[in-house]
Structure formats: structure tokens, C-alpha cells
């Protein structure tokens, strides 16, 4: 670094370029040439036309400004959101949408967590489900029709496979339909661990509610119900997206079930074909084993029993 360079602008600029490029080459260009930067999970599929249209809307509305899509391998993060993110999940993500800020929750494992109806209701009016949320309403998405020609151009640009039928079906779909379809595919290439087998999952509990008729537990259960359950089962538990919890049916069959079945379903969640005491569920219920303690869940059951038939 002799003094000469400071009165020779071209030599100075060339030196600066080389100095700038060293870190660039080592941390950015070189990794690009290695297979570890291009992994792909075996069961990862390209987006369908409807899913890609949904992803485009996710981009357009700037969802990435408030929602991340990457679960870090930290204990509480895996508890809250699910399996931590794998490099091979994102091979078709152009660009990546990991985000940098969680004003809202991470969405890396949102696919399949709730039924479609939950998302429609939530996008329409988030405050209807979570009165204190700061998420803006996206009701207008249900009014915009998709343009199949535009989606086709996007599919072509990305070289994703599609069929003519798939495209023509888009004509009757809205931005909202597309965004929900995208929500439901995010993070699904990583196999969900079966709820019952998961750590903390409970199988065949057979004992009565230890907190039954306990007034304190009922009061606590009421509060927990409002925070965790009311958005799907309604404020009075008479059902909305999810079924009524105070009628005489369970898993769409007549005849209620004992407390411990309520506990199991709440604790484990359900997926399609989930069987509880010989009855088959449709799935769609998230499990609460990670966010609620056992006492919490028993309290909710005690609360539900206390309002039953009222």
C-alpha cells in the first residue's frame, strides 16, 4: 500500500475492486457452485398453478414483511411452530421468503395446520378471530379474479409443469382461493410427525378429569377457551369452523364421549382419518400439547362441561 496508489485513480479503483471481490467470491460465488447450496427434498414438488398464483399474491401484499418462513432449530421454536426448516425444502422458492421480522407468527409449518375455512375467515377479518391482532384485513382478495394467462406466463418463466385443465380452472378462482392454496402447501414437504407419536402426545388416557367441577379450573378454562379455542369453535362453543363442543355429537356421530377423549384430541390435534374411540375425524384441529399444560387442557374440558346444555 505505497503512497503511489492514492494519486492513481485507476490503480486505486482496480485494487478496491479486488479487495471487495474476495469476500464476495468466498461467501457468495463459491458456495453457489457447490451442491450444498442446491439441495432438494425427495418429495418436494413444484408449485401448482393455483399455489404459485397464491405465492405471487403473498409477494404482492408484502406478507414477508411481517411473517418469516423459517423455523430455527431452537427448542421453543420447534415447540411453537413445528419441525425446524431444512435446506431442501426451498428448491422451488424464487425468491426465498424466509423474511426478517416476526410481527406475526412464523408460517413455515402453516400448511395443513388449519382447515381452509380457518384461513378464509382469518383473511376476511383477522380481528374477528383474534380481537387484539394487528393484522390488516384482506377481504378484498376475495373480489379479485385470477387471470389464467398471467399465471401461465409465470409458470412458464419458472418452467413448472401444468395442465390446460388446471389453468382453465383458475378462471373461476379468486386471489383469496390462491393465497389459501399457497398457505396449505407451505412446509408440507417435510413429513409431519403423527400427532400421537409425537413427544408429549398422549395415547388412550383413561381416567376422569382431575379438575372436573373445580370452580377455579372452570374460570381458568373459560379464559383459556377464549384465547385458544373460540376462534374456531365459537364464543359460546356452539361451533363455527370447528364443530360444536356442547352438543351431543363427537366426531360427527351421535353420543358424546368421555372427558379423556376431549383431552386427547385437544392435546394431540387431529389429522384426516384420525381415529378416537372408533370414530373417524376429518382432521384440521391443531394440537395444543406444546402451548398448553395438561392442567390447562383439563381446565378447558372442565369449562366445556360446565356450560354444556346451557
Amino acid at each position: 500500500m505505497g503512497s503511489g496508489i492514492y494519486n492513481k485513480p485507476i490503480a486505486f479503483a482496480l485494487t478496491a475492486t479486488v479487495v471487495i471481490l474476495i469476500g464476495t467470491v468466498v461467501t457468495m460465488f463459491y458456495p453457489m457452485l457447490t451442491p450444498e447450496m442446491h439441495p432438494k427434498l425427495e418429495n418436494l414438488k413444484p408449485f401448482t398453478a393455483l399455489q404459485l398464483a397464491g405465492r405471487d399474491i403473498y409477494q404482492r401484499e408484502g406478507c414477508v414483511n411481517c411473517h418469516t418462513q423459517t423455523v430455527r432449530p431452537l427448542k421453543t421454536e420447534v415447540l411453537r411452530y413445528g419441525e425446524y426448516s431444512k435446506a431442501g425444502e426451498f428448491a422451488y422458492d424464487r425468491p426465498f421468503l424466509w423474511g426478517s421480522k416476526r410481527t406475526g407468527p412464523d408460517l413455515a409449518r402453516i400448511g395443513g395446520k388449519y382447515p381452509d375455512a380457518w384461513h378464509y375467515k382469518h383473511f376476511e377479518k383477522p380481528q374477528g378471530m383474534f380481537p387484539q391482532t394487528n393484522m390488516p384485513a384482506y377481504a378484498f382478495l376475495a373480489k379479485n379474479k385470477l387471470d389464467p394467462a398471467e399465471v401461465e406466463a409465470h409458470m412458464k418463466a419458472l418452467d413448472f409443469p401444468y395442465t390446460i385443465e388446471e389453468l382453465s380452472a383458475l378462471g373461476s378462482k379468486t386471489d383469496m382461493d390462491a393465497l389459501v392454496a399457497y398457505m396449505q402447501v407451505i412446509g408440507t414437504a417435510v413429513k409431519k410427525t403423527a400427532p400421537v407419536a409425537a413427544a408429549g402426545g398422549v395415547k388412550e388416557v383413561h381416567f376422569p378429569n382431575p379438575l372436573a367441577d373445580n370452580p377455579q379450573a372452570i374460570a381458568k378454562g373459560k379464559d383459556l377457551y377464549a384465547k385458544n379455542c373460540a376462534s374456531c369453535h365459537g364464543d359460546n362453543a356452539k361451533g363455527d369452523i370447528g364443530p360444536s363442543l356442547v352438543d351431543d355429537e363427537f366426531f360427527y356421530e351421535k353420543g358424546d364421549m368421555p372427558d379423556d377423549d376431549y383431552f386427547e384430541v385437544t392435546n394431540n390435534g387431529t389429522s384426516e382419518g384420525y381415529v378416537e374411540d372408533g370414530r373417524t375425524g376429518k382432521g384440521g384441529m391443531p394440537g395444543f400439547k406444546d402451548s398448553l399444560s395438561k392442567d390447562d387442557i383439563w381446565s378447558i374440558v372442565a369449562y366445556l362441561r360446565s356450560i354444556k346444555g346451557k
Partner: protein
Amino acid sequence: MSDYQYDNQTVKGFIVSSIFWGVVGIVIGLLISIQMWKPETNFAPYFTFGRLRAVHTNGLAFGLGVGAIFGLSYYIIMRLAKRPLLFPKLARFQLYLFNVGILLAAVSLLMGQTQSLEYAELEWPIDLAIVILWVMFAINVFGTIIKRKEEQMYISLWYIIATTIAVAVLYIVNNLSIPAGLTKSYHLFAGVNSANVEWWYGHNAVGFVFTTPILAMFYYFLPKSTGIPIYSHRLSIIAFWSLVFAYLWTGAHHLVYTPLPDWIQTLGIVFTIFLIAPSWGSVVNGYYTVGTDWSKMNTNYLTKFFIMGITFYGLQTVQGPTQGLRIVSQLIHYTDWVPGHVHMGTMGWVTMTTAASIYYVIPKIYHTEIYSEKVANIHFWLVLIGQLIFSITMWITGIQQGALWKATNADGSLKYTFIETLTKNYPYWQLRTVGGLIFTVGMLFFIYNIYMTIRKGSLAEAKA
């Protein structure tokens, strides 16, 4: 040395344009800060947080930041090269294209046309316009420096040259995309690779837009305003080369604990820690410069802007590397701590230093004195208080968020639902809006002062 010779009109044009876009960006910033705690203030589809946030960041980074960088770099280059710009008409055309480009950029973002890459949201047609703008800038930067009439290139020119080169490389590579229509494209890079390219760009956008050109201003205008030469030329040489070397390695500290290969994360963290040294090289150089005569803090109203600015730069460049450490990142990443950090840099360092530079330049090119030092002092204290409220509230709520997300019950289950962790931010977000308001009022004092100075100057010229 007439006005014509130094092409002050173009310099003034860039400064006034940058102030205009700054007002737009700051007002939108206020609105989105309210949207954080009052969702009814989202007006779909064009004025939701999701779309406006990019208008805020781009408006301020490219409108206020790059606009001021163009204007002040030209001012500095002409003085240090002791000659007018080599292509004055090109610079004038660049000014017009700049304003058209920023306007189109803002409209396109409101329309939802975005690449979803932070600080590289703009779609490919506008990217092309920006590349053209930058080439115009580079032609005048290099042309004028090569044809200079002063042999030695002063420190500020090194930083301007490095900025010109680095921004070109960063911007072009990260914006490579597959066009899928006039207003839509997909990143050429996918998944993990897309993330790595974007944050190599994203962090260095901070390095070469919010750091190196601002240091060029600092090294030029601090000695000019105080009349004290820079303390150590040798220190500035070491700081310069180690800064531009180390910056490019550090992008991955934005991707700690993501699926990006660990070795890239670790390298990123290591170089981020190293970056404290060159950053503080400039901080120390600034302190020691004024340290030869601290009375300048009282007697020269601009000195405190520069010293407070470089102080926030110093704090920023210690806080940033700390955040890169895995143990810290896992607590504060994805929380409001990060906007708190960013705004200390942008409101404390970049805006403070740029405003002081403009205070120096405008009276010079209008052959007059500043309209009111008193107004400048009010401006100083208001932006300082506003920025501190902003940053400190965000640090507190950021740590709170991180801690609540991690809190577990005795049986290992999570203690708080997400919505519970969210609502605890509201009081802090409201305070942040108050801080932003105070900052905005401070900036209005600045604009008033500049406006009155220009008016005074024009009148003086008319009389002459």
C-alpha cells in the same frame, strides 16, 4: 470560482430532491408505525403495511439517501479535484432521471410490484433505470477524478470510489432475475442460494449506501466545518482498506440458525466481529480530530452533529456485531430490536451527518450564512430525542418479545400464545410513534432552515 464552474445547480437539485423524498419516506414511516398498533389505519389494497413498508425503506434509502449521496459526492469531488464535473449535462440529466425513477419506484411498490427482496424490492424495468443512473454517476465520478487538477486523492474520494464500484456489483448481481412479464420477475437464485445472495447484497447495501458514502461526507465536512485537519491519515488508510475488505463477508449474519450452511454463517459472524475495528478506526479519528479543540462543540454548531453522528455510528457498529453472535441472535432476531438497531444508524448516523453536510453546503453555494443556528440547534435536539425514544423502546420490546417467545412452563410447554406476546408490544409501538413524530418535527425545522437559507441566498444574488 463562479457558480457555473462548480455546477452548483445540479448539487442543489439533488439536495432538494433528496429532502423532498425524505419527507415522503418519513411521513409514510409515521403511518406504518401507527399501523403496527392500529390495524384500522391500513387502507387496502394500496396503503397496507405490507406494501407501504417497502415504500418507506426504498423512499429513504434511495430517495433521501442516494439522492443526497449523488449531490454531496459531486460537491466533494469537484472541490477535491479542483475542477467542475467532467460531464455537467450528463449530471443534470441524471438528476431528472433520478426523480422520475424514484417516483415510478414508489408507484410500482404501491401497486404491489415487488421482488420481495429486502432493499431490492423494485422490479426489473426500474432496476434497469437504476443501473443506468448509476453508470451516469460512475462516468462523472471517475471522469472528474481522472481529470482532476489536484494530484493527491483525499480520503473522501477513496470512499466515493469504493461506493461506486461496490454498489454496482451488489445491485446487478442480486437483481438478476427471470422476467415473467413487464411487472413481475423471479429471482435467478432459488431457496438457500437466493437467501445467501440477497443478504450478501442486503448487508452491503447498508455498508455501501449507509456507511462508505456517509464516511466520505464525514471525512470531508468535519475538517471543513471545524477548520481542523483529520487527526490521522495513516489510521484512515488502515480503516478504509479493512472496512471495504471485511464488509463483503458479513451478509450471513442475517441468516443465523437458518438452513444456510453453518460455515458461511460462522464466517459471516467472525468478519462481523472484525468489522468493529475499522468502524472504530473512523470513530476514533473523528474524536481525536475534534479532540484537539473540544471548544468547537460550543463555537461551531455543526461539530455536534458530526460528533453525535459518528458516536451513533460507533454504537451501531458495536451493537451490530453483537447481534450477529449466535447466542444474541437467537434472542433478538426477528424481533423489534432489529428495527431499533437500524433506526439508530439511519436516524442517528446517516441523517445527522447528511443534514450537517447540507447545512455546510447550502450556505456555501448560495454565498450566504445559515438562516438560523438557533433553528439548527432545535433541529439537532429534536431528532436526537426522537431517535433515542425510537431505538430504546424497540430494544426493550425486542428483548421482551424474544424472552416471551422462549418462556416455558415447568412441564416444558410454552408459556405464552403468539397473540399474547404480540399485544405486549403495543405500548412500546405507541411510544415509538411519539418518537417518530418528534424526529419528524425536528426534520421540519431542518427543512425550514434550509428553505430560508436558500431564499436569503437567492435574494443576495439578485441584489448583487
